[in-house]
């Protein structure tokens, strides 16, 4: 590097801060209020009848409002999973741990959640799991009202039952 080049300004710092007032939306508000009551609320598409959990207010396939509310239980099936070995500042948990796609019973869209109360080696596709909620006084309008999912003593779900949700 020549002397002239070494004198080039390499970077500047321009601090920036913007604040937003986020609107969760009608469907997400229903879901989050359900979380505060210890309930998992989804919505069914009137056209294709798929049940979205959490609901977003629309069916992404059909482009119509999903205005039929359905409550689904806290039990479901692991469709796919990964073992995380990288620590994360945003998670109060030590690696290795398991993040899984869980298809709740009665839902058509899997979502991500943590699997606990078992060794990561035991987690497998088709494993049956249930939601573990925070204590009743700690329930709030947040997905964190569910701490994690844990295995339940049931035979694995057959592959055919979740293969179209992978």
């Amino acid at each position, binding site marked *: 590097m020549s002397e002239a080049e070494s004198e080039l300004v390499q970077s*500047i710092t*321009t601090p920036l801060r913007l604040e*937003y007032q986020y*609107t969760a*939306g009608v469907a997400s508000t229903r879901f989050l209020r359900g979380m505060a009551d210890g309930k998992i609320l989804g919505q069914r598409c009137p056209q294709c009848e798929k049940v979205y959990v959490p609901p977003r207010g629309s069916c*992404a396939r059909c*482009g*119509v409002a999903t205005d039929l509310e359905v409550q689904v239980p806290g039990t479901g099936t692991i469709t796919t999973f990964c073992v995380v070995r990288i620590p994360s500042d945003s998670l109060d948990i030590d690696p290795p741990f398991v993040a899984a796609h869980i298809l709740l019973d009665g839902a058509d869209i899997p979502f991500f959640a943590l699997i606990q109360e078992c060794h990561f080696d035991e987690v497998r596709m088709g494993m049956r799991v249930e939601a573990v909620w925070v204590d009743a006084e700690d329930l709030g309008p947040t997905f964190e009202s569910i701490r994690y999912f844990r295995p339940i003593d049931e035979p694995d779900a057959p592959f055919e039952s979740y293969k179209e949700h992978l």
Partner: protein
Amino acid sequence: MRDVAIVSTAQMTNVRREQRRNEVEMLMPVVQEAVKRSGIPKGDIGFTCSGSCDYLAGQPFAFVSALDAIGAWPPISESHVEMDGAWALYEAWVKIQTGQADSALVYSFGKSSMGDVPDVLNLQLDPYYLSPLGIDSISLAALQARAFLEKTQYTERDLAKVAVRSRKSAKDNPNAQLAGDFDLEKLLAEPYLVSPLRVHDCAPISDGAVAVVLAADDTARNACERPAWITGIDHRIEPHQPGVRDLSESPSTALAGAKAGVASGGIEVAELYAPFTHQELILRDALGLDASTSINPSGGALAANAIMVAGLTRIAEVANRIQWGSIGRGLAHATSGPCLQQNLVCVLEAK
């Protein structure tokens, strides 16, 4: 060139702040209404293009989740511009001209209320020399207004007249947010917001959404009795740095207007996207519009200014008037960037 027309439009009623619905929930009924009015089955629409800005929501790729409102299955041919929906319409028009589609859905949405609009718009400026100074959109517009008033015969009274007329016209627009009868003298007695601009000189902050359906040739003729044919459309841009421009005039609007063929016939209605009163006067002069043209009968951006939506709304407002049979030829204008940096002009006609 293929004949391309707007065959249907739909708008959300603009509000200061949509408290309940998120963008997808705002957009869905608007898109459904426009598609339904077009009579073209959704699956037959050849191309979908949207305009929005992720900085408004503060979420990267917010425009991708907006597709949940469309129903992109089976997979659709789709594109997006990080601009006002008027430019999405331009892209759709080009797509139809190339023969790759015979019809298109164009939509835009803007939830301007989520952030601080003047600060968000600061981020469209040069990031090295201008944005760090913290100059906001209203201050920049005030610089332009000052340059305009100093260089021309116009006065602050002329600016206030634009505000009074716009908000009076908006009384007839069910989708307007700010409408009513305002007293000129009272407005002029108000203090400056950023001199020489007062609050009435500035557009309101609005949440809104708009959708239009375009179709070519016989697809358009079959879809609607009086299609609003796009007989000219062009957009031009000026330098990014406001300091190198003469802010008192708009050469890019004049050029886009000339290329779009504005002067080849009378203009009964002009819908101009002027979020500040003085900008309407600059645009009128750039387009050579006189008293024979009705300016912003919808109330324009001074009555509702959902960012990324208000430009496409201007096009929809002119198209509506042609479809209703109330006019035969009109022009719509959209702007982007600080102080009318980039301008699009679209001429619409009945045939």
